[in-house]
């Protein structure tokens, strides 16, 4: 291990030293706030739902859990859930890692925009992605049509859609950017001198990567991969739409049993609840492992010298070098996978099919911007756009302060059960939005929080969903914060509050911003829970896409998706720009 990799244990243990007990009590009170929030809007409703899976005729019973674990069908479903999540994670690494390399090593025009835009797939609702994939990779999609024309084939050569391959590819579309972002963050902080020294000492490029670079970016890679695995494990609309009914995961099974397969004895409901319990146990275990991996590797990488990027375009000769050629192949493939579906949706939104063939049109856009009432939305389409932004900002305003308080305590407190505690508080991450929506649907329909039909139902659901991301984004930043700076400020006469405002907050601004961006993105793209909780007039853009899709009108869902992509892309670029400027002032 290179010498400057400092273990986490070396960092000062507690900010509380010398601050006094009164402040300790104050902090405890503050900590209670997010815990109370989680208990009221997450744990209590969830426990209420899961209890159904553990009771029969009002008494405790393991019948349903046992039924699931011994049934061949459910074993198949559980194994498939793991299998597709594993393949999807590997595919995400294969697609995301090279991009992290390119972003770290090379300089090219619009690099910053590309980096900002890597988060866009994350906000796209699954139903839009499924549509884009069908348009591009379907049997009658652009790609198969192109290949059939090119080689004169009669049958489509690439059976990607409606198969495991389609599910894996769609998951990679979503999650490769997570790998890119986590690895890029680690790689960028890596001092290039380690690699240079190894090269100077005669190591080949391959060995430098394997023995020097890889171990140092491994923490980022592993924590990214673990996160991706959990997401794919919990994914459900992609499996439902891209894979279709012949594929079933734990979440799909919960959805169909609880949402639609109604029986008077409520057996299916109970099986759904028991499945949710099993799924949650599995994903909580994985979250625990994820936190261990992340915690175990969390090291302070002191950057001694910034990494100088190399221009990507360096003349025609360089362009044709074999190593560069490999790079261009990757760029081509990733353009096809990431940009292709988005372009396919764009094309679909501008096209009108008629009996005489078809023509370009703007009518779908005119249609979705009508401010007039539409029964299928319960409001105007324009309201959906405003709602999305409103819910996103509202959820951010709840989750950011709560997450900040929480991350502060996690980053500072040192005690034995911390990791289990941490896992429990990360449980929203390990809970699929569909399970959360069922739990909240029950809770908001009864006292004390009869919130169904109000915007608060959706905002609270979104806050619970994005809360763990805010915390995850903030903890590392707070852990790396040098306590001496604050102590210094205080010793120079600054009040605690002033030190917080003028030293700590600006220093954690990056993390806060990263958390905010991610949180806002998740809120924008959230569909499963919103669809269940939103009453007419409370629709968001993804819900509107879903509604448009269930209409006979063909271009409108694509047009709405394009508007959504545009709004979110703009928000990210602005946020990152604003963020970097804010940072440059310190």
């Amino acid at each position, binding site marked *: 291990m290179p010498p400057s990799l400092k273990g986490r244990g070396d960092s000062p243990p507690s900010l509380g030293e010398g601050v006094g007990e009164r402040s300790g009590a104050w902090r405890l009170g503050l900590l209670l706030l997010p815990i109370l929030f989680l208990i009221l809007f997450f744990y209590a409703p969830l426990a209420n739902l899961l209890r159904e899976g553990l009771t029969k005729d009002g008494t405790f019973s393991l019948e349903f859990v046992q039924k699931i674990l011994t049934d061949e069908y459910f074993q198949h479903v559980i194994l498939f859930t793991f299998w597709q999540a594993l393949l999807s994670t590997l595919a995400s690494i294969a697609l995301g890692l090279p991009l992290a390399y390119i972003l770290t090593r090379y300089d090219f025009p619009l690099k910053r925009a590309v980096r900002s835009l890597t988060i866009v797939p994350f906000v796209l609702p699954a139903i839009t992605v499924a549509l884009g994939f069908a348009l591009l990779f379907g049997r009658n999609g652009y790609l198969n049509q192109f290949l059939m024309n090119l080689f004169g084939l009669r049958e489509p050569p690439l059976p990607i859609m409606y198969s495991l391959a389609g599910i894996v590819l769609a998951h990679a579309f979503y999650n490769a950017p997570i790998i890119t972002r986590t690895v890029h963050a680690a790689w960028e902080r890596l001092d290039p001198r380690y690699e240079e020294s190894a090269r100077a000492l005669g190591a080949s490029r391959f060995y430098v990567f394997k023995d020097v670079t890889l171990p140092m970016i491994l923490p980022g890679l592993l924590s990214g991969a673990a996160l991706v695995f959990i997401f794919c494990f919990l994914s459900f609309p992609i499996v439902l739409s891209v894979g279709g009914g012949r594929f079933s995961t734990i979440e799909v099974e919960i959805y169909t049993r609880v949402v639609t397969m109604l029986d008077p004895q409520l*057996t299916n409901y109970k099986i759904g609840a028991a499945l949710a319990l099993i799924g949650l146990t599995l994903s909580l275990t994985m979250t625990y492992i994820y936190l261990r991996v992340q915690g175990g590797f969390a090291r302070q990488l002191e950057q001694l010298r910034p990494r100088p990027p190399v221009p990507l375009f360096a003349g025609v000769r360089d362009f044709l070098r074999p190593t560069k050629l490999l790079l261009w192949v990757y760029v081509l493939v990733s353009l096809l996978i990431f940009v292709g579906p988005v372009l396919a949706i764009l094309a679909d939104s501008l096209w009108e099919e008629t009996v005489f063939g078809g023509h370009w049109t703007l009518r779908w856009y005119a249609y979705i911007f009508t401010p007039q009432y539409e029964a299928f939305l319960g409001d105007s389409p324009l309201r959906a756009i405003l709602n999305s932004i409103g819910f996103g900002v509202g959820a951010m305003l709840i989750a950011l302060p709560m997450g900040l308080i929480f991350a502060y305590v996690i980053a500072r407190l040192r005690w034995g059960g911390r990791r289990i505690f941490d896992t429990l508080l990360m449980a929203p991450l390990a809970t699929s939005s569909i399970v959360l929506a069922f739990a909240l649907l029950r809770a908001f*329909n009864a006292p004390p929080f009869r919130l169904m039909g109000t915007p608060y139902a959706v905002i609270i659901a979104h806050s619970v969903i994005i809360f763990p991301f805010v915390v995850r984004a903030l903890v590392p930043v707070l852990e790396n914060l040098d306590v001496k700076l604050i102590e210094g400020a205080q010793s120079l006469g600054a009040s605690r509050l002033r030190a917080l405002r003028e030293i700590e907050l600006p220093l954690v601004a990056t993390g806060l911003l990263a958390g905010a961006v991610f949180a806002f993105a998740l809120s924008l793209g959230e569909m499963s829970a919103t669809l269940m909780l939103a009453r007419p007039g409370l629709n968001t853009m993804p819900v509107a896409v879903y509604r448009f899709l269930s209409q006979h009108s063909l271009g409108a869902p694509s047009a709405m998706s394009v508007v959504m992509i545009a709004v979110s892309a703009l928000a990210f670029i602005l946020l990152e720009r604003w963020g970097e400027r804010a940072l440059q002032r310190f």
Partner: protein
Amino acid sequence: MLRRAALVALLIGSVLAWSVSFSVAQAGEGSKLVVYVYDSFVSWGPAKFIKTEFEKRNPGVEVEFVATGPSRAMLARLVQEIQSGGTPADVFMGEINDIPKAKQFGLFVPLGESDVPNLKTVAKSLLFDPERTLIPYEHGFITLVYDSEKLKPEELPKTFADLTKSQYQKKLIIQDARTSSVGHAFLLWTIYNYGNLGYLDYWKQLLPTILTIQPGWSAAYKLFTKGEAPMVVSFSTDACFDARYKPLLPNNQGYRTIFGAGIVRTTDNPKLARAFLDFLLSVEVQEKLPDTEVMFPANSQAKLPEKWRTCAVIPPNPVMLPLDLVAENDDRWLDEWARLVVTGR
């Protein structure tokens, strides 16, 4: 610092403005009628017309359609809400094959002609429910639909058995019987033809023909019109929407589908709910159904559009399983079906 504070203020301000605009939109609330209905009714049915006209006739009344999923999902939602503390729903509208389940839960109020005068206009053959807890307002036939630009008439399968031939490999898109009422009807249709004991064997042979099983009718139909497969499970009246897509009747059959509306037992506004049902059955609304829902009206006095004489197909053999048989076996059928399509065994 100042700029950042201004930005934060702007953010908070805009959220406030947004939530105020919301409460303004909600203000002026008189009496409200909440209608639970499957999503396609609000997407392309006459929901907008019904809302506007009913509100015009009943000043101070607001109609709210809640349509978060297909018919079965709305029913499950209703049951779960009632069991967990109450539902805002006053009226429920759903598909006939879900009716037995609704009755098992005793969700709806029995109705007579004195409650809903327009009930007398409904064709007797449609009154499937002797207690009249759900009153039929429209009906149609589930069939296969094919793309006439992809399949020539001589290439079409004529029977259910033909469908399993290798020439139709990956040529059919269907819906999930667990989540979609159209998919459910198709499953029941195969059970009608192959029986309680034989239908799983038939499905085993049918699997290679199926390109994909989509969660709902809309997604399936979208893939069909995008040319992903030349056949889809849909309605016999689809040619009225686009002449390119024609009905295909295996065994010369079509599976009956009937939609009914009822009043939720817990409603606090039964009078308004009855008026709503009566309005739903009025000639005025009923004559909108062919063009919007692409369904036959239940009211026998409602006139069909001129072109329906040629484009709307009534299958020579309309079939349907008895509802009590469905009620008794449905859960097992769905479970067995799901096991087969997911594991292939």
